[in-house]
């Protein structure tokens, strides 16, 4: 599945839920399902600034692709991270840099989450992009 196809799949899944609370239920389930990071990897250098909740993002380069794994102490945030990891993990740096991340707008996540959370989301995206740029 290409990056765009994966994004479309998430947009389609998300659009099944009309009510915000149902969308949250979905994100909570995703958050619970995300493996997360072992405690020893929740370090200061993996911590993403700008979130009311704490978010840790780990990135490894394997066979030319970037593998992301992430965690958060808040479950809805963890659900959003799970979406991001699902889309961007296993992609080449070039694929990630070529993307405009607009699929998050299509999900309505940026506008409808709290401003501090949106900032956290923006920080998360910036971190993913900078990891891709570092590894290009």
């Amino acid at each position, binding site marked *: 599945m290409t990056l765009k196809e994966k994004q479309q799949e998430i947009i389609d899944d998300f659009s099944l839920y009309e009510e915000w609370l149902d969308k949250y*239920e979905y994100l909570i389930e995703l958050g619970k399902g995300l493996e997360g990071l072992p405690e020893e990897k929740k370090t200061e250098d993996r911590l993403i600034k700008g979130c009311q909740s704490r978010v840790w993002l780990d990135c490894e380069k394997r066979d030319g692709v970037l593998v992301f794994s992430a965690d958060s102490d*808040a*479950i809805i945030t963890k659900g959003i991270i799970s979406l991001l990891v699902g889309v961007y993990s296993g992609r080449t740096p070039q694929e990630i840099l070529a993307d405009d991340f607009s699929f998050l707008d299509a999900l309505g996540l940026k506008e409808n989450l709290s401003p501090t959370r949106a900032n956290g989301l923006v920080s998360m995206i910036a971190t993913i992009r900078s990891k891709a740029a570092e590894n290009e």
Partner: protein
Amino acid sequence: MCDLRNEFPQLGRTVYGKPLVYLDNAATSLRPRSVTACWDEISSMRTANLHRAVHRVATEATEAYEAARDAVREFINAPEREEVIFTSGATHSLNLAAWSFGEAFIGEGDEILVDEAGHHSNIVPWQMLCRRKGAVLKVLQVDESGALRLDLLPSLLSSRTRLVCVAHVSNVLGLVNPVREIADAAHAAGARILVDGAQGIVHQKVDVQALDCDFYAFSGHKMYGAPGTGVLWGRRALLEQMPPMFGGGEMIQTVRWEETTYAPLPQKFEAGTQNISGTPCFVPAIECLRSMQQDECITEHVYRELSAMPGVRLFGTTPDLSRKVPVFSIAVEGAHHEDLALILDKMGVAVRSGQMCAEPLMDRFGVTGMLRASFAPYNTMQEAEYFLSSLRKAISMLK
């Protein structure tokens, strides 16, 4: 209640198609029509700079501004109107106090005692002052219930203590601190006492003489007034000795290259063009505050329900509910405060989550943040019930 609620138009709005239940009053209160009308009237009909020109509109603008000073003086029972300094908010008031008091009275090795449950605005300016002057910052701790450890006061106060800085009411714990008792202890040790009244002015009858404090600071926007307005009240004897923090328009008497002399109180501390439209709103805001009464049944009900809710830890507890204002901060086992606030938001309930500008207090209780619901007299029992049931639902979604 219906009439009262009609005075606050925002109570009539919806969010995500649901009626707004506004429970973030400790962060900023809503404004009644009388306050927005005052702001609008001055902005549209009586705008001119204050204290300067001789023309008619300038006189009217100045009169409206000075009428606010009289209203505030009376409201807090300050001895003199010149002791009421207008600022842009409690944070400005506290920084002004820290700078000017510090310049006048603080030297190397002097001590300042702050309250562990304090808002960052009543911690950081004192840290900055201590760093600037080589003074020592000491902390008056709270116990598990959130009450200040008055038993520690004798060991914390010394001959070097110059100032004790406490909140009248903690913005997180909602507990009314025994300010008079602390003031007596501070004065007996030869120190002064400053009270952060940002929450106290809203929920308590404030009489600065009965409290026997030396400074009292608060904001307009939490007491139904205009944002960008605030007050620092201080004793004349102290204010006279304190140098101004800002120099410029209207704070001067004569300006010479050799030396500038300053205007008398209160202008000495009010440099530059003041909040022409906002500050006069203290008059209708005080009227509004006086006309409303908090329904104690709501405070008691929410307190009992949160205390008994499984997995919920309520901070700021007391057997005497007359010492508790309707500000409720909680942590929920297995549910992050941000998740709870996000879900409540989508149910139409506006609450606060995070550190509430009191990071040392979060550390004290071993949490990364809390969820806070803060009520005003215009909130109804029905809204309280809706909040509690929404909270239960949010918790069950996250479990």
